[in-house]
């Protein structure tokens, strides 16, 4: 028993001695271990994240900014070259509206007819119809932005000279009217002038 205690005490003493002897190394080792562990736990991921952000995110964002800046400059110059004044835009929209506007058309025709001593007897619009079984034509029509509308106009009350003037008004109108056929019947005050017009819109 005494020997065991003595042995145990000796072992403890030897451990203490070893600790004392190599205490400096132990301290340095502990410090290094803490540094290494700290590096792997805290520093490594953080550093990797920083590297990734520096090398990937910042460069990618900067390249995107450069690209956008170039597009910005190009767009600015392109718009300066292509830019229309509001008056020009209005004139273009009058000449070729974005959609068929029958009320506007009626007002214009009536105004021109009155101007040339005519009265508008009738206005008839024939919208373009697409055959249900003709998908190819439908697709083709849908893809073409320029659409045609046939409008039949009958005016009465004027004479031949008035009719020619009325035709001149239609030809010189800002809105494009193409008379596809002209017919007049009767004589004197009962003469009727019938026009089939083609007008357009851009959609």
């Amino acid at each position, binding site marked *: 028993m005494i020997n065991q205690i003595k042995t145990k005490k000796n072992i403890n003493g030897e451990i203490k*001695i070893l600790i004392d002897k190599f205490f400096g190394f132990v301290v340095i080792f502990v410090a290094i271990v803490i540094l290494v562990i700290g590096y792997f736990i805290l520093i490594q991921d953080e550093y990797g994240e*920083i590297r990734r952000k520096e090398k990937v995110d910042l460069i990618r964002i900067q390249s995107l900014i450069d690209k956008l800046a170039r597009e910005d400059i190009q*767009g600015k110059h392109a718009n300066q070259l292509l830019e229309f004044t509001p008056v020009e835009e209005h004139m273009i929209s009058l000449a070729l509206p974005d959609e068929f506007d029958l009320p506007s058309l009626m007002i214009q025709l009536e105004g021109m007819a009155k101007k040339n001593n005519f009265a508008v007897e009738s206005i008839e619009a024939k919208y373009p119809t697409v055959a249900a079984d003709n998908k190819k034509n439908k697709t083709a029509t849908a893809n073409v932005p320029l659409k045609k509308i046939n409008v039949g106009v009958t005016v009465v009350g004027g004479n031949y000279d008035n009719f020619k003037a009325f035709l001149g008004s239609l030809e010189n109108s800002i809105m494009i009217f193409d008379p596809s056929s002209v017919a007049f*019947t009767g004589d004197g005050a009962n003469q009727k002038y019938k026009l089939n017009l083609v007008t357009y819109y851009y959609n």
Partner: protein
Amino acid sequence: MPDINLLPQDLRRQEEKEISRLARKTRTFDVELSGGVKNKPVSIVESKPKASLWSKIFGQNVKRESKKMPEKPVLQQSSVEIDMLSAARKQKINLSPGKKNNIVSKSAVPTVKVPVIAVKEPVKKTEDDKAKDGWSQIFRSIFGGHQAALPKIVDTAFNSPAQTPKKESGVPKNIDKVESKSKYTTVPKGNKSKFNINLIPEELAFRKHINRKMQSISMVFAIILPSLIVYGLYAVLQAYQNNIDRQITAKQTEIIRLNEKVASYKIMKDRNIDLQQKLLAIKGLHDEHIYWTNFFKLLEKYTLDGVQFTNFSADIGGEFSLPAIAGSYEEAAKQIVVLRQATDFIKDVKVDRVSLRNSGLAGITGVDFELKIKINDGVFNSIKKQP
């Protein structure tokens, strides 16, 4: 006294080297020589309990308490002999640089004759000494701190004031006043013997280990300092990452701004392109525009005065019938010829039917005929080219 050196030549060189080596070290210490013991060699180190493994390897703190020193002398020496030694043997050797072999006393160290000092009584172990060799000493050597295991460097033979030689007045005072360094002192000054000799190598005798408190503090520092370094580095990286994040955020804001700007330019660009397309379409429509007034002008131009068109129906296909009334057949014929000669207007003229016009009460008033004409291409489109 002449300095006689009887060493061989090679040993003398070694001695000179050793002296020169020691001369580089600045140290001054007392060398007090003592006699030996007849029966056994003089134990300069005090008899002490069995040293632990701890003390054997690392030595102990040089802390001693004079009160605990055993007062029982181990060596006994007569006062007469001590008087003889104190005057003759006490020397002061100064090995400071620049003073090679600066020996205060006249006799050189290698040639000193060591006298034999008789011991009156042999060393006897007391009960305390026996106890020191027992279990209590083992426990003390392991757990009892450093005092029990301290190497007791100086013999305690003359610690008792009664046994201290009284004739020390013959020794020069300057020698007495030379004090060993306090850290080397193992005996309180009051009990300090003149025979304060430590033959344990310096490296071992004065080797110190930091105590437990210092070890604990060192370990705490070894943990805290790297942790602080790591945390500081982490904080720096965090700050740098925050800076990068701020840069990224700023750049993303700039991207959003540029995107909006470019998007607005794209909208304007698309609108302008659309207007351009419209303009091109308008131009195309104007190029293909139908001018009926041109047709009527040409028709009037090539119509004779006596000819009248009753009904009119035409389309842009270019072929149509034109019923007309002429005053006579001759006039109708002339009209046909005129139209046939109008190459800039008519491509082809045909007359299917010519007949007299009978209007009842008025009788015959003219000739009805119907023209089938085919006009030239571009009549409806080339109004501006017409004269």
